[in-house]
């Protein structure tokens, strides 16, 4: 194992060396040292020339003369090796500075083990390195099996023949009643089972096919709602992207489709995207939709950095709290805090709060006490295919609306 230690104090380098030797006594460890960033960069450059001299770990201090830790990070980000050598940053700076450095390294896609305050806990560092290696290996294995579909495959796949929609119930927490359903799409090809949105939505968006796809989904969802008078009382939520709002044909298409369901509330869930929303055209589209009795919902709240802007300029009907924050809020106090303040924000703005990803009774009870209006998730039901929807509604309503007390 080859370890490069970068610190301007010899004492620190020696301590780290001694500790690594002790912890990795079963391994042959070669140490390389640098007093400053510039010296380190030369060493990294030299070592990466050949396979057999590759470094296995870099431990770098932040504050040094002649090139600091950030210079090292910048060099690694700019060169191709950034993603292959594990890096641990050590510093005596305060916690918030360390967090900032961590964010910077993550945006550069570095192989960052962590940012540690001095004195460094080497055993923790090694443990996290081991875990990270495992996770990366699993991710690589997985990527091999589940590579994203190519754009060509996607454009071939997106038509009504391969589209299957599932519907996930939205439940009013206080009464346990069904208020509506969110439409979730699956693509099906031959005998390959279901392909989930995380594998095709990025490509669809990238390839500029988003509006074509949204139309297909709306078309199938609306014909599902027209199959039975029983569905008409339930809200129908369909996901759209900001790109869709730039397309006037799409807006007219939605308004036309909505006229087929005069008594059903149609909600368009706006998912995150990097597009800015303040453009006139987008706002005009939103106004046109709202005038035509179509509600807009802010999806994945908390996931995208631009959500506050949006909240300010669009009269949303509801905020949907992302499932990553909801599903473990009874175990993760940070997530609980985020959900709690989102619900408070929604209440102040007089907008409904919908929590996604509810899987257990314990999470549901937390949400209830926080004053959340609606919930969605596997606790109520996994997404349901159209052909089972009516019988599911019957079963759920028959069992009574006392899900919370059961």
């Amino acid at each position: 194992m080859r370890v490069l230690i970068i610190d301007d104090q010899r004492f620190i380098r020696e301590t780290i060396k001694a500790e690594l030797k002790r912890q990795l006594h079963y391994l042959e460890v070669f140490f390389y040292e640098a007093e400053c960033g510039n010296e380190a960069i030369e060493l990294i450059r030299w070592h990466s020339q050949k396979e057999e001299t590759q470094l296995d770990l870099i431990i770098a201090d932040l504050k040094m003369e002649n090139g600091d830790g950030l210079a090292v990070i910048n060099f690694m980000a700019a060169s191709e090796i950034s993603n292959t050598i594990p890096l641990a940053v050590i510093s005596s700076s305060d916690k918030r500075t360390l967090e900032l450095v961590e964010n910077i390294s993550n945006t550069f896609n570095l192989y960052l083990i962590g940012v540690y305050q001095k004195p460094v806990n080497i055993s923790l560092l090694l443990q996290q390195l081991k875990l990270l290696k495992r996770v990366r290996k699993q991710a690589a294995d997985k990527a091999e099996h589940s590579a994203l579909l190519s754009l060509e495959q996607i454009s071939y796949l997106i038509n009504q023949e391969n589209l299957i929609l599932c519907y996930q119930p939205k439940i009013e927490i206080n009464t346990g009643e069904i208020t509506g359903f969110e439409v979730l799409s699956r693509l099906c090809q031959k005998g390959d089972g279901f392909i989930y949105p995380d594998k095709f939505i990025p490509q669809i968006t990238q390839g500029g096919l988003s509006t074509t796809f949204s139309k297909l989904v709306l078309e199938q969802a609306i014909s599902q709602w027209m199959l039975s008078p029983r569905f008409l009382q339930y809200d129908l939520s369909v996901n759209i992207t900001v790109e869709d709002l730039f397309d006037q044909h799409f807006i007219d298409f939605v308004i036309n489709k909505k006229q087929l369901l005069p008594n059903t509330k149609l909600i368009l869930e706006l998912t995150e995207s990097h597009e800015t929303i303040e453009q006139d055209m987008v706002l005009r589209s939103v106004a046109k939709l709202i005038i035509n009795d179509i509600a807009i919902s802010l999806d994945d709240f908390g996931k995208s950095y631009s959500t506050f802007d949006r909240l300010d300029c669009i009269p949303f009907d509801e905020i949907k709290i992302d499932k990553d924050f909801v599903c473990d809020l009874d175990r993760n106090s940070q997530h609980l805090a985020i959900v709690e303040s989102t619900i408070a924000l929604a209440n102040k703005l007089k907008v409904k709060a919908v929590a996604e990803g509810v899987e257990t009774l314990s999470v549901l009870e937390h949400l209830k006490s926080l004053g959340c209006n609606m919930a969605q998730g596997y606790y109520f039901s996994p997404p349901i295919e159209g052909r089972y929807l009516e019988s599911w509604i019957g079963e759920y309503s028959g069992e009574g609306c006392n899900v919370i007390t059961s």
Partner: protein
Amino acid sequence: MTSTAYSCTNDNSSHVFSMFLKQIRHENDLSQEQFCLRLREESSLFCNLDSITISRWEREVNIPSLAKQAEIVELFGKELFDVYGNDHQFISEGIDLVNYEQSYTDGRSIHPYYKEDSYTIEKIGVEHHCFLFFLRMILQYEGNPSIELVSEEIIKDEYASLNIMVACAYGNQVVGHCLYLDTSTHEILKLLNFKSGLQQVITSAKGVNDDSLLVLSSFGATSQIENSMMSIYINKFACSKPLRYLCFSLCDETLIKKLTAAKLTPFKEKLYEKEEVQVTIVSFLISRSEVMANRFLLKLAVISASRLNSMLNTMVKGG
């Protein structure tokens, strides 16, 4: 497009779904147009369907995805499993997946002393004198900290809901196993969110609200044994209509890889952390129609216990 006269060609090579379509249309006395109209009226998946497409399906010019086939088959009161489970061609494709004679092309064995040989499969009930031994062995193999045995003293009756199957080769070498039980999705979600353990899942399995089959471990020394162990619970799942979800909670990377290679997407990948232990637990939650829409799982589903046994018996005699 006018309706084509129904003609029954008993050609074995024609596609099972095309045959089903022709047959069901004949039984219900529907023309292709009428049939098309009926699908459009009863399912949103066929909102754009035209009768030309139906004619193409019947003539095997193209065949819809298994997922869409399932919708049509169910509109006429059957399941894809019933249709494919009666097709000799398809069953033999399933049998090929577990037939050891095929294994020469593969040859992979993860067992040090076992290559290709006959083996037998035995159910280890709670009354079996080695029940606890096998249970511990399987749990140790899987290494899933969320389903540890909490106490040493266990009340055997409580464990009656657990199904253990073990594959043994010569000299009682264990070359495969599986551990599964029927339970409810609520119990599974509790387990996957670390809100309960093995004990709770077992004791809460009452049979009344069971809508899921939960697999906790499944292994085979060769991919044929692996497939035969899988066929045991997948066939059981397919045969039992109240079961709506097939779930896996796993740490064993071999099976996780196998499931992802079969194009299944994990439901959750969750890190279990307790003191020094850090393990990733990968779970799958597959709906009944997803099982049927997946060609690999459907092939395993049509291998009934009796078919598997007769195949193993011929192996023992032949080997």
